[in-house]
C-alpha cells in the first residue's frame, strides 16, 4: 500500500464566475521513504498539489488516498490529527511565530498531540539538536538568519516524528549556502530516518537531491522519472 495515492485529482478555483483549472487530473502514488521533487514553471499547480497532499486544501474532484483511506472519508478531527502526527510542513516563507523563541516554535505541534507536557521540552530539544541549533534554542526567531529560521521550521515539522515532510520551495528565500545546508538536513532525514519527503522546487540543483522527479505543466504530469 502506497503512503500517498492520487487518482484523477482536479482543482478548480472559481473567482467572480471565472473558472481557473489548476490541476487537471493527476494520477500517481508515493511510497513510504521516497524523496520526491515536484518541478514545474510557476502556475503549473505544484503548490496547490502540495497543499492538497498536506491536508491544507481540498481537491475539487478525483480521489486522494492517504495510508489507503480516502481524504473525504476522514473527519475534520482526524484530518487535524494526521496533520499533527503524520505530516510535517516546511514553507518557503518559514511561517514561524513572531516574538517567540526557537524552542517555543519547535514545540508548537506538541500541545495538539496526546504527548504529555513533561515530554515536550525533551522532544523539542531533540528536534533542535537534529538541525544543529541547540545553542540557539532560547533565541527569538527574529534574531536568526534566514537559513537558521528555515532549519527551525524543519525542526517543527520533525518534532512529532511524521511519516512525510512536505516542503514548499524551502530554499526559495535562501542564499545558496543556506539552501544547501537545508537540503543536506532534508536528505539526511530521508536517508537516516526514512522520512518520506515531497518537495517543490524549480531549481534543478535542488531537485537533484531527490530520487524521483515529477514535472508538472498546466496542471498535468509532464514526466515522472526515478533515478
Amino acid at each position, binding site marked *: 500500500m502506497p503512503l500517498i495515492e492520487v487518482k484523477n485529482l482536479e482543482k478548480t478555483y472559481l473567482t467572480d464566475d471565472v473558472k481557473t483549472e489548476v490541476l487537471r487530473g493527476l494520477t500517481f502514488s508515493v511510497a513510504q521513504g521516497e524523496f520526491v521533487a515536484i518541478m514545474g514553471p510557476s502556475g503549473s499547480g505544484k503548490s496547490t498539489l502540495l*497543499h492538497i497532499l*498536506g*491536508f*491544507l*486544501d*481540498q481537491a475539487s474532484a478525483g480521489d486522494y488516498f492517504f495510508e489507503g483511506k480516502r481524504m473525504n472519508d476522514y473527519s*475534520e*478531527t482526524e484530518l*487535524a*490529527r494526521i*496533520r*499533527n*502526527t503524520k505530516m510535517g*510542513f516546511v*514553507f518557503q516563507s518559514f*511561517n514561524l*511565530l513572531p*516574538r*517567540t523563541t526557537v524552542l517555543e516554535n519547535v514545540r*508548537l*505541534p506538541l*500541545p*495538539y*498531540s496526546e504527548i*504529555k*507536557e513533561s515530554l515536550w521540552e525533551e522532544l523539542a530539544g531533540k528536534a533542535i539538536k537534529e538541525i544543529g541549533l541547540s545553542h540557539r534554542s532560547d533565541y527569538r526567531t527574529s534574531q536568526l538568519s534566514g537559513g537558521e529560521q528555515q532549519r527551525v521550521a524543519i525542526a*517543527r515539522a520533525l518534532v*512529532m516524528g511524521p511519516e512525510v515532510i512536505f516542503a514548499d520551495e524551502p530554499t526559495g528565500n535562501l542564499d545558496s549556502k543556506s539552501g544547501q545546508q537545508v537540503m543536506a538536513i532534508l536528505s539526511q532525514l530521508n536517508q537516516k530516518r526514512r522520512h518520506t519527503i515531497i518537495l517543490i522546487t524549480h531549481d534543478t540543483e535542488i531537485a537533484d537531491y531527490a530520487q524521483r522527479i515529477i514535472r508538472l505543466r498546466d496542471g498535468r504530469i509532464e514526466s515522472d522519472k526515478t533515478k
Partner: protein
Amino acid sequence: MNTYLIYGFKTALNGLKANKSRSSLTILGIVIGIAAIILIMAIGQGAQDLILNQIRGLGSETIFVGPGREPQGPSEFTEILSDSLKNKEVEALKDPAMVPGVKRLSPIVLQVMTVAFENETKRINVVGASDLLMEIMEIYPEKGIFFGEEEIKQYSSVVVLGYEVKKELFGDSDALGEKIKIKDRNFKVIGALPQKGRVGMFDVDNMVVVPYTTLQKYVLGTNFYNTILVQAEGEAAVTRVAGDIERTLRELHNIDDPSKDDFHVMTQVSMAERVGIVTDALTALLLSVAAISLIVGGIGIMNIMLVSVTERTREIGLRKAVGATENDILIQFLLEAVLLTAIGGIIGIAVGAGFSFLTSLILTQVVGFGWGFSFPFSAAAAGLIVSSLVGLIFGLYPARKAAAKKDPIEALRYE
C-alpha cells in the same frame, strides 16, 4: 485536553503580553464595571447593616404601636399625628385578658423642644415615658437614678439627661440636683445616661426623658401618645402579641376592615424586612447601572478580539497546519477573552474593595456613622463570575470566527 488547557492559558497570557497597552486599556472597562458593582454592593450592605443594627438595638422583643395608619407615602405622613392612642388604649393593652404575654409597656410622648440651663439652650427631643422605658431599652443611668412609678403618678418635674445633652449644658460638672427649663417649666435633674448612640427610633445621647404624665399635663397639654412601646415575654411571643394588639385595638375602635386601621403595629422583624426591601431595591437599581458599563466593556473586549483574530490569521492557519482542530482554536481565543476579563475582574474587585474601605473610613471618621467595613466576599465571587462570563459571551463570536476558517491554506495565505 487538560494539558491543552494549561498550555492554552500560557499561550493566551503570552498573547495578551504581546499587546500590553492594548490589553490594559481593553480591561479598563471591565475593571470600572466590576469595581462599581463591588462598591455598590458593599455600600448597600453597609447601609442595611447600619439600619438593621439600630433596629436590633431596640431588642427583638419590642413592639411599636403607633397612631394612624402606617404611612404608605409622603402624603400620608400626617397620619402619625393622629390622636388615636390614649390612656384607654394603654389600659387595654396592659390587660392580660386582652393581650397576654406583655412583659412591660410604656407610652411615649415625643416632642422637639427648647431645653435651657442658665444661658445654655438647646433644641432636642424631649421624651415622655413611663418608668419602664429604661428596662425595655436596657439603658440605665450612669449617675443618679431614673424616675419611678411614684413620679409618674405625682406628675413630678424630674428629668434624666442624655449623654450629649448633659455634656453641652453642664460640661464636666455633676448635673444632679440642678434645674433645667423645658419650655417654661423647671425640671430637676435626677439622672444622667451613659453614651449610647442611636437605639432604634431614639437618639439616646441627644434626648432627655421625663415622666409622660408631667409632659402631657404641664408642658404639652395633650392627652394622646406618639407611640406605645410594648415588650413581649420572649422573642417567640412577639408575632402573637403583635396580632393580639391589632385585634384588641380594632375591637376597641370598632374597626372591621384592616385597611381602615387608625394605628399601626411594627416589630423588629417587620421593620427589618421593610429596610431590606428598600435597600435591596436601591442596590438593584444601582447595579443595573453598573451592568451597563460591563456591557460596554464587553463590547470593547469583542472589538479587540476581532482585531486580534484578523491580525493573527496566519498564526491560526499555522496552528491548524500543525494539527490544531477547530475546537483548539476556539478554546485558545475564548481563553484569551476570558483571561482578559477575569484579570479585569480581579483588579476591579481590588479597586472596588479599596473604595468601599475608603467609604467606610470616611463615614466612620468624618460623618460619625457606626459603619463597618467587611470585604464583600459574595460580591467578589459574583464579580469574578460575571467578568468571566462577559469574556465568555463577548469572546465567543470572535473565537468562532477564528475557528471557522476552514482550510488552513486560506488562513496561511492571508496577508
